[in-house]
């Protein structure tokens, strides 16, 4: 269940402009990973490269023994059947109803009868809470509903890997936390590998097992959630805690003068690490770790107040 994605020395540039270079990471099978980064660091480009919509300039992406960067078009279309992708705006087919949209991959790829298709589609619609809206056109529903419909379509072929392109953009905080809960529940249910691209730190702090941070044309850090949340590394610390003090400026990175001016400023203490979001039925996911386990194993003292129930309540879990 779930498939591992091995990315090695991946580089991509548009013309002369390097988007990111030498990205090496392994997305572990069945776990939830979040890829973070300031706006414009090529997070979406990374996602599109993973599914072979964009060809990297260098490096390899190996999924089940196939290198997506160099394989043939035919292999690519085969390997894509392992994927479910939620696009930023849902990318629903505008001329079809939601039902037909969700049924589309089944009709194209399987020889299932219409009644079997109906069962599967209704099950997925139920999963994302869209029962009753099957006959609507994508233009007639709200952005949040389009996203959930997109998720239903992404899940319909029982993917081994699910990619989310900014699931929280354009959603209100309540819907975002519902969607986050849905993501965690789904992972518990289908055990697929999840990769979420976002710049919402609230999602990043509570949902994933692993976090990656793209910054300044490279992968700044990738590792378990607690490792990044307790990290003193300036870029990671600044981004994950949404602070102004640090190497990230308004436009890309700060220059030497600005950094010099900030040198003596006291860095605010690291905020406590919140508890990870648990599946709503209370049964832990297979890839879930004990709160604080990583910190204990690596002798890192988490910031005071970490892993406390009350704290996670206060920030609206």
């Amino acid at each position, binding site marked *: 269940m779930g498939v591992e994605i091995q990315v090695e020395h991946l580089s991509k540039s548009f013309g002369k402009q390097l988007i990111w270079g030498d990205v090496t990471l392994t997305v572990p099978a069945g776990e939830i990973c979040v890829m973070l980064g300031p706006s414009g660091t090529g997070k979406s480009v990374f996602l599109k490269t993973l599914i072979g919509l964009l060809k990297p300039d260098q490096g390899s992406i190996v999924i089940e023994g196939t290198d997506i960067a160099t394989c043939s078009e035919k292999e690519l*279309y*085969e390997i*894509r059947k392992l*994927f479910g*992708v939620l696009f930023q705006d849902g*990318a629903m*087919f*505008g001329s079809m109803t939601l039902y037909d949209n969700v049924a589309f991959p089944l009709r*194209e790829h399987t020889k299932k009868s219409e009644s079997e298709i109906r069962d599967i589609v209704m099950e997925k619609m139920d999963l994302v809470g869209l029962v009753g809206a099957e006959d609507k056109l994508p233009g007639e529903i709200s952005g949040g509903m389009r996203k959930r419909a997109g998720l239903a*379509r992404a899940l319909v072929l029982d993917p081994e890997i699910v990619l989310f392109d900014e699931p929280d953009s354009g959603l209100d905080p309540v819907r975002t936390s519902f969607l986050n809960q849905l993501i965690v529940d789904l992972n518990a249910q289908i055990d697929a590998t999840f990769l979420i691209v976002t710049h919402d730190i609230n999602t990043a702090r509570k949902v994933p097992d692993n976090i990656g941070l793209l910054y300044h044309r490279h992968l700044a850090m990738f590792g378990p959630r607690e490792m990044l949340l307790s990290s003193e590394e300036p870029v990671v610390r600044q981004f994950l805690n949404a602070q102004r003090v640090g190497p990230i400026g308004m436009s890309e990175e700060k220059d030497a003068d600005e950094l010099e001016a900030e040198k003596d400023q006291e860095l605010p203490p690291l905020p406590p690490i919140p508890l990870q979001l648990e599946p709503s039925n209370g049964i832990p996911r297979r890839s879930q770790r004990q709160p604080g386990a990583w910190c204990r194993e690596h002798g890192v003292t988490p910031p005071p107040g970490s892993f406390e129930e009350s704290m996670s309540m206060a920030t609206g879990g």
Partner: protein
Amino acid sequence: MSSLTASRALAPVGTAGKFFAFGLDVLRALFRRPFQLREFIQQAWFIASVTIIPTALVAIPFGAVIALQVGGLIKQFGAQSFTGSASVLAVVQQAAPIGTALLIAGAGGSAIAADLGARKIREELDAMMVLGIDPIQRLVVPRVLAAMLVAVFLNGLVSVVGVAGGYVFNVILQDGTPGAYLASFTALSQLPDLWQGMAKALVFGLIAAIVACYKGMNAAGGPKGVGDAVNESVVVTFILLFIVNFVMSAIYIQLVPPKTG
């Protein structure tokens, strides 16, 4: 700097190459199963519905203009009995394929480019590829075939309506004799004229649809990009079709010598 100028100067070559590669992709996908029959029928119906009435309306003045021009000229030679023949020759050989080209590019092609362009910028095409479906096979091939089919029918439509229009103008406005008009039909024109008209229409449909699909699928930069794609696709198709029409006419005249009445 020099490399910059070189890359600018060579950019059109690159575009032409990409377009050609796209054409080859379409050709390859043409034979891949399963064939999208439903989409093909829908598209053929759609293209026909946006082109039939404009085509008929364009064909009438086409036939009339030829009748007026040729009729006046031919009178001075005292060869009125050949008016019908000249009209048929001009309409079937040239006016019908040109009229088809205008409509298939202007009405059919622009609609295809707008449709695919909108899908492209809404990431629908990406979503389709991610779902393991090749948009060239699923969307482009049915559109290309539909445009070719409809183009051949439009060619027939322009021929009939154009000749009928010429007849009406000749007989009613220029006091021609109906019998002479009809009797001279085959004096200058021959059956291969009709075949070449249909062959031209087939090629025009192919080019118009491939250009429209290519431009639509490469639309970029939001809603404005879709507008640009439609605009470019119509302009490029017009230019290409007029060139191809010239080349095909020249080849045809070499292959099939004109009939001498």
